[in-house]
């Protein structure tokens, strides 16, 4: 491509780069700030002295967390939830999306099934009926609830389905001629062709499971079963509207505030995501694009 080398063009380039750097900085800074607070001294953190670098750096918060069994317990639950949940969701979604990607002539109930999905995406009975249902299944306090209670991630089904639709039909046709059944076509032709969308949805699903806090709050009866985000919310939550504290509660509250410790917990909660994300990132651009915008 030919580039004009005028002054205006150069100026634009510089300004553009600055804008982009600022934007990128704005996205990076909050995480960096949290990290700085987490390794700053408690006094500096609470006095608002931390800006762009840590003050009085120390790892006290992290060593405190090391011995915090409740934190690591929740951390471990979140990891298990992500692994089990992602595997389960991927298997179900792949099997579910493939027939839905067929046309109505190829699979008759397809449209009805599709509308059911959309209906379920938009309607729900609300928190209370949902809680009662899960409770009646005997799933309170179980990993099953943390994995299943969120129901089918319909949006991801749509994404995958749209991607499957974009796979050239001749590939399947050729396999069919060779005598392959639907199952073999799905697992040996369609899935290998769909790496980007699968990687994308693996990313979405695992991040979704990792970030979810509400189900943990409602469906887990004991803190020992809380996933990490629920745990973090519980330690950083504010006093609800209209509640008066007793002397004892107040004392606890007054003694326990520790900004750098809180920041350290928040930061550790970010770490697994920061580790996994770069590996899947290269796929996810193709994944969502092809899933959403059909050629």
């Amino acid at each position: 491509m030919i580039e004009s080398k005028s002054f205006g063009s150069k100026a634009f380039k510089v300004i553009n780069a600055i804008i982009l750097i600022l934007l990128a900085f704005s996205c990076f800074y909050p995480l960096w700030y949290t990290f700085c607070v987490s390794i700053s001294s408690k006094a500096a953190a609470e006095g608002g002295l931390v800006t762009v670098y840590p003050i009085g750096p120390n790892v006290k918060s992290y060593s405190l967390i090391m011995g915090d069994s409740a934190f690591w317990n929740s951390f471990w639950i979140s990891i298990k939830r992500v692994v089990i949940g992602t595997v389960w969701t991927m298997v179900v979604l792949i099997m579910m999306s493939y027939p839905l990607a067929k046309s109505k002539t190829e699979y008759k109930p397809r449209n009805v099934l599709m509308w059911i999905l959309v209906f379920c995406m938009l309607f729900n009975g609300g928190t209370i009926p949902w809680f009662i249902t899960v409770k009646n299944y005997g799933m309170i306090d179980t990993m099953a609830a943390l994995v299943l209670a969120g129901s089918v991630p319909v949006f991801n089904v749509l994404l995958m389905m749209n991607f499957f639709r974009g796979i050239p039909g001749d590939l399947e046709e050729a396999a069919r001629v060779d005598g392959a059944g639907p199952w073999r076509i799905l697992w040996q032709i369609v899935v290998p062709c769909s790496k980007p969308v699968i990687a994308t949805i693996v990313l979405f699903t695992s991040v979704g499971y990792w970030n979810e806090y509400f189900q943990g709050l409602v469906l887990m009866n004991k803190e020992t079963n809380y996933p990490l985000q629920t745990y973090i919310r519980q330690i950083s939550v504010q006093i609800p509207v209209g509640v008066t504290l007793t002397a004892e509660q107040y004392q606890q509250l007054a003694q326990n505030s520790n900004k750098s410790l809180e920041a350290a917990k928040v930061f550790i909660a970010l770490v697994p995501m920061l580790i996994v994300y770069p590996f899947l990132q290269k796929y996810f651009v193709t994944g969502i694009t092809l899933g959403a915008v059909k050629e």
Partner: protein
Amino acid sequence: MKKKKGHLGLSNSFHYTLMVLPGYIWLFMFSIVPMVGIVMAFQDYNPSKGWFGSPWVGMKWFKYLTVIPDAKRALVNTLIIAIAKVILNIIIPLVFALLLNEVKNMKFKKTVQTIVYLPHFVSWVILANIITNILGANGIFNTVRSAFGATDTVLPMTIPGIFRQLLIGTDVWKEFGYNAVIYLAALTGISPSLYEAAAIDGASRWKRVWHITIPGLVPTIVLLTTLAMGNVLNAGFDQVFNMYNQLVIETGDIIDTYVYRVGITNMQFSLATAAGLFKSVVSFVLVVTSYVCAYKFADYKIF
């Protein structure tokens, strides 16, 4: 068309049904069964009598919703916040994608991309915690202000007049990188030969963007706009729930948080269900409309 017989002599349809079965059982158990609870919206729900024994009250709660200012306020806030988010979440990522597209240094481009996608993957529980710290009295926001000579403390999270803007702004900030992905992909689809021809004709950078890039993106923009219609009542529960407080309830309360407060905190189970159902019905209508529009105008089948 003749039915093809597949594996084991059974029709493909049969196998397809087997494939969707686990997903639909899952859906049935956790989405459809709880929907029975929607009947509460038409009852005076009494827990000990349950969904089948509580007295019916018809549309009482819906009528009631139309007269309470809180519900109206929540609806207005929801509309303002959600519509602003819809619009800005289309425009800002577009601008960002265009700017990024002008960058020729691939390494720089990749780095920027990687960083701006990040916030999308951070939960609101954590972001709300971070934002509150940054904008608090001892946060960087006020530290910087006082470094520039300000003597007062400004707490954006507590000012009703700007809380909605704050919600919208932080949401757009969180999602712009991620939302730009689709545009960036569409941009790669625009043939480089067009640009080359334009450059030879001596078209300025601005002209090239205006006459080649934008028209190339129009279908994508139209599509995204149509798809976003379904979100007009979705102002983002997780975000608001984790960020709002008593002082800004007036401008920050949305339908979802209202439903939560009424149902869980005040235990008006039926009223909360009615409000939630109202939202679902409106959203459903909007989504169906957008489905029809997308099909008609963009020849795109969403599902």
